[in-house]
Every structure is written in C-alpha cells, then in structure tokens.
C-alpha cells in the first residue's frame, strides 16, 4: 500500500520571483497508474523531483501519512526514470545490480533479480555490454530496469520515451505496460503526449503553468474538462471553443444562435459573456437543411485515419470556426452543410478563468 499526498506544495527555482509549482494539492490514494500531463515547462518534472526528494519545496508531502520532509532520498522507497537516459559507466549487468547493493540479500538472490528484470526487458543479449556506449533506447531500457529492480513502492517515470527514436518507442511503451500489469505499485508517469497518458495510466492530472487543473479518470477528464485548457489539450483535435453572449434567452454567436442547455440556464441568466466548448466528435453534420441545424460552410477535409475525417467548418459570416470529426461519407469540401449542436454535449466555461461553471 502506498498513498501519496501533497498539501499546498509550491516550488520556486529563483527564490520566489516565479513559481514552477503553485499550491498543488493532490492525493494518490492507492497503488495504480497515474500520469501527469501538460505542455512543456508546466512543472511536471518539478513535481516528480519533489516527490523523490530532490528539490526544496514549501508545503507538505506525505507517504502513507508520514511527512517526508526530513526523510533522506535513499530511504523513500522511490525509483525514478529520467527524461534523458541516465546510465552509469559500467556494464548493463552492474547497472542493474547497483540499486540493490545496499539491500541485505544473498548474492544468488541478487543475481536472480537481475536475471528476472533483464529477461522482462529483453536485456539479456547486451547484459555484458558497457551501458554508456549503448543507443538512447537501450540506455533508457537499462534505466528502466534499474528503477524496477528496487523494491520501491513508487515508480516515477519522467517522459521516459521522449528521447527515444520513434520506431523503438512503441516497443518500450509495451514493456512499460507489461511491467505495470505485473507489479502492483504506484506508477506516476509524466508526459506531454496524451496517447501515452491514455495507454499508461488510469487517472490523469492535467497541468498548466505550475498548477494541477484537473485530476480525474481519463474518461471523466475527456467528457467533462474542468477547464477550457484541459478540453483543448486533451483530444486531437482538441475541444472547439466559441465565444458567446447571452441574448434574449439564447446563446448568441454573432452569426448564429443556440438555445441555452438546461444545465446552464442559471449561469447564463447571470452572466452576459461566456465561452462554449464542444468536442469535435459530438456534432451531427448533414448535407440538407434540417430543423435546429445551423448552416456552415465546409472549407477543407482531412483524413484522420481509421476511416475518420476532420471537417474544417466556418459559419455563414466567417465569425466562428469549428472542427468536426466523424466518418461523414457524403460531405464534400467546398459545400454548404448543416450542423447540429447536441445540448447534452455543450459545456460552458467562465470567460475570465476558463473554468467550468457547473
């Protein structure tokens, strides 16, 4: 069992002028697969290093209820894989052996553990090679092995696939996934690639500018983004964002209007301006005029793969642009189309903070 808890954690690299991490509150209740997702420079690495004990911070970090402030790095039961592949200048075998040197084990037991990890990660053929002479993918695999061989409760993975050639990325990703299924630990996986986050974790924390915007299951984050930023960052293409105004009980978007969805009637009654978000997959698009459908013009069509297409739509007076994703077999580029906005899929956000209003 391992429960990781952060209370009001902040971190600054320059003595308080700017903050790399701001008032983070986050609890990972139990073993499982978590990921931190966010754009470059949002503080993901900083957060991991604080959990590992490698950085100074304000606030509190608890493992299983114990405050970790005074606990030295090597006693934290943590293993970490870094963004750039780090190996020691010795053989792959010795690299794997190093983290368990300190543990009181019989030498056969150590040997057995090394063999076990090396066979899982398919390192057997290069076990005697000098680790620092290997390519980035192999070095990162060794680093992964070094992290996994320890009896650590928490495994931190900081963009382990970023510095690896594209062809080998998938192989290593599969290895990581297999390990996650076999070992029951807390895995915290950092990435700015949402597809990695989706395959390698069950709960995702989306970060931006040193804050955690939303920490939830991936389904919930996708369906109900807490911030416009989250909606836009997750999904490809991301959520459509339209600026709207309340007018005569309707939502006005300059060249078309929509009825207010029942959930948002109260908010829109009180606020004149707001942002509307809607996922590209949620539209119904027709070639013929229908009731409640809004006329748009299809500027361009792109293949998305797996039979899906992305429509680039613009409204009558070109005031609003949308992307729609679907099969759309009979839609042609350069034609007029009619689009239905399903009320249940519309999300309204505060114009100032970008935060959901529900």
């Amino acid at each position: 069992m391992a429960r990781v808890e952060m209370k009001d954690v902040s971190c600054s690299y320059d003595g308080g002028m700017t903050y790399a991490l701001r008032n983070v509150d986050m609890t990972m209740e139990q073993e499982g697969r978590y990921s931190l997702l966010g754009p470059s420079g949002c503080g993901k690495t900083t957060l991991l290093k604080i959990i590992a004990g490698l950085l100074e911070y304000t606030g509190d970090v608890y493992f299983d209820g114990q405050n970790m402030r005074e606990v030295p790095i090597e006693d934290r039961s943590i293993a970490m894989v870094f963004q750039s592949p780090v190996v020691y200048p010795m053989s792959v075998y010795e690299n794997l052996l190093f983290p368990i040197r300190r543990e009181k084990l019989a030498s056969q037991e150590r040997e057995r553990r090394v063999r076990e990890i090396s066979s899982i990660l398919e390192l057997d053929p290069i076990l005697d090679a000098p680790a620092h002479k290997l390519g980035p993918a192999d070095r990162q695999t060794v680093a992964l092995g070094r992290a996994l061989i320890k009896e650590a409760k928490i495994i931190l993975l900081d963009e382990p696939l970023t510095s690896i050639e594209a062809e080998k990325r998938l192989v290593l990703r599969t290895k990581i996934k297999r390990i996650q299924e076999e070992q029951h630990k807390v895995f915290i996986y950092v990435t700015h690639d949402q597809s990695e986050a989706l395959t390698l974790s069950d709960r995702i924390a989306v970060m931006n500018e040193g804050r955690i915007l939303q920490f939830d299951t991936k389904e919930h984050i996708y369906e109900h983004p807490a911030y416009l930023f989250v909606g836009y960052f997750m999904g490809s293409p991301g959520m459509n964002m339209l600026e709207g105004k309340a007018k005569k009980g309707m939502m006005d978007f300059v060249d078309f209007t929509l009825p207010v969805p029942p959930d948002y009637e109260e908010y829109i009654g009180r606020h004149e301006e707001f942002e509307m978000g809607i996922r590209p997959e949620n539209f119904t698009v027709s070639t013929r005029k229908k009731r409640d459908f809004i006329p748009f013009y299809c500027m361009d069509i792109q293949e998305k793969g797996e039979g899906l297409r992305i429509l680039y739509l613009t409204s009558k007076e070109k005031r609003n642009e949308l992307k729609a994703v679907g099969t759309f077999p009979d839609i042609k580029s350069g034609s007029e189309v009619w689009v239905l906005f399903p009320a249940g899929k519309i999300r309204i956000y505060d114009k100032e903070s970008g935060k959901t209003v529900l």
Partner: protein
Amino acid sequence: MNKRSSKQLLGRTAKVIFFLLVLVVFLFPIYFMTITALKTRSEIETRTTIYPHELNMKNFREMTRGPWKRAIINSIVVCVSSVALCLPVSFLAAYAFSRRPFMGDIHLYFWLITNRMAPAASFVLPFFAIYTNIGLFDTKLGLLFSYTLFNLPLAIWIWMSFMEAVPKEIDDAAFLDGFSVWRYFLRVFLPVLKPGLITVAVFIWMFSWTEMMFAVNLTAVASKTLPAQLTVTVMRLGYGVDWGMAAAGGTISIIPGIVLVIFTKKYLTRGFVPLRRL
C-alpha cells in the same frame, strides 16, 4: 593516363609538397636544437652546420649530473606535486560551483578567475617578500604554492566546462540509488569525466613544467627548475653562452610535452566538446 587523373596527381603532389614544406618550417628549429646539443663546442662556435660532423655526447651526459640533474629532478617534483595537489582540489571546487549553489558562489568564482588576469610578474615581489620571511624562498614547496595560485583557476574552469556537459540527472539517479557522494565520484562521476581529468592534469603539468617567472625569482640554487636553469645558462652574459649545454637542456625540456600530447591527443582534441552521450 587520361587528362583528368594526371591533373589529380599533380594536385596531390602539390599538396604533399606544401605540407612537407610546412613540416620542415615547424620542425627545423627543434631539429637544429637537437643536433646543436650533439655538436662539439668548436663546431658550434666556428661554423653553421646542419648535421654534427663529430658526434659529441658530453652535453647530454652533463644533464645527468650537477645542477642540470638537480633542475630536472626539481621540475619533476614540482610538476608531480602540482598535479597531486591541484587535481583533487580543483575537482571538488568545480563540483561545488557547478552542482551545489551556495551563497556568493558566483563572486567567489569570479574572484578566482581574476587571479589569472594579472601577469605573474606582479605577484613576484609579494611572494618574494613573504617567502624570504617565512623560509619558503628557494624551496620546492614555495614554488608549488605559487604555481597553485595560477593552476587552480584554470583547472576549475576546465573541470566546470566538462561537468556542465554531464546531465545533472545522473547525480539525482545515483543519490536515489543510494550512492554516497564519494562513492558517486569514484564509480560514476570521475569515469564519465575521464577526458576532463586528463585535460586538467595535462594543463597543470604543462604550466608547472614551463613556468619561468617564479622559478627564476623565487629560487637561488637548491630549487631551480629546468626552465630556470636554462635561463641562467643562456643569460650568463660576459662568460659566453654555452650553446651546446643550453640546447641539450632545451631538448630535454620539450620531451614531456611531446610524450603527453602523443598519449592524450584523443582526449585533448575532444577537448570541451560536450559529452552528452551520458
């Protein structure tokens, strides 16, 4: 043979001749010094010859005794102790500067570097005054201390440029794996920094081996190093310079440089190029 390949051949020949010429220009002084050491005194003083007509080993034999032998031993002792002292000290200092920020670190570093901006001559007088008072004048220890003033800043600077190229994550990984700092130095950091270690050692050695200003002015008899002894030999005005002896001393003095360069070329030419591979 067709036109094109004969043209190529001509180009190649021209290139070879050009580089041979360059080689001759650069090597001739060294050649001339060496053969001068092998000539007899009368041959040196009567005519200019480009090879010794009569082989004379006396000058080199002279190197193995008396003041010359002492000078060579002094030089080696001062160089070895300079490397032994400055290498570890500069390593630790550079590690602190590059990995462990502390209050005023930039100012301390800058002050160290500025020590190298003054000419050695400006330090001679204070060193002389202090050394004569505390009994360090004409001692190898005194030379060692004065060389350290010049060796340390450069050594720290070279170390740091090598250390900056080693990702800090390797420190973090090692501490997470339970290395102690010393163990980390020994097993991880130094092996990665081997080219840096060799470069720093070579620079310290070469500075101490070639240094003249302190060697001449802070020693009298017992602690003269090879460059000082050479200077004395060449400058003995009025008595007539013993060219053969000076040439033999000069020849001996360039040997360590040649040997060092041959054995460490691989590391020196790689120089300060980042070692990002690790």
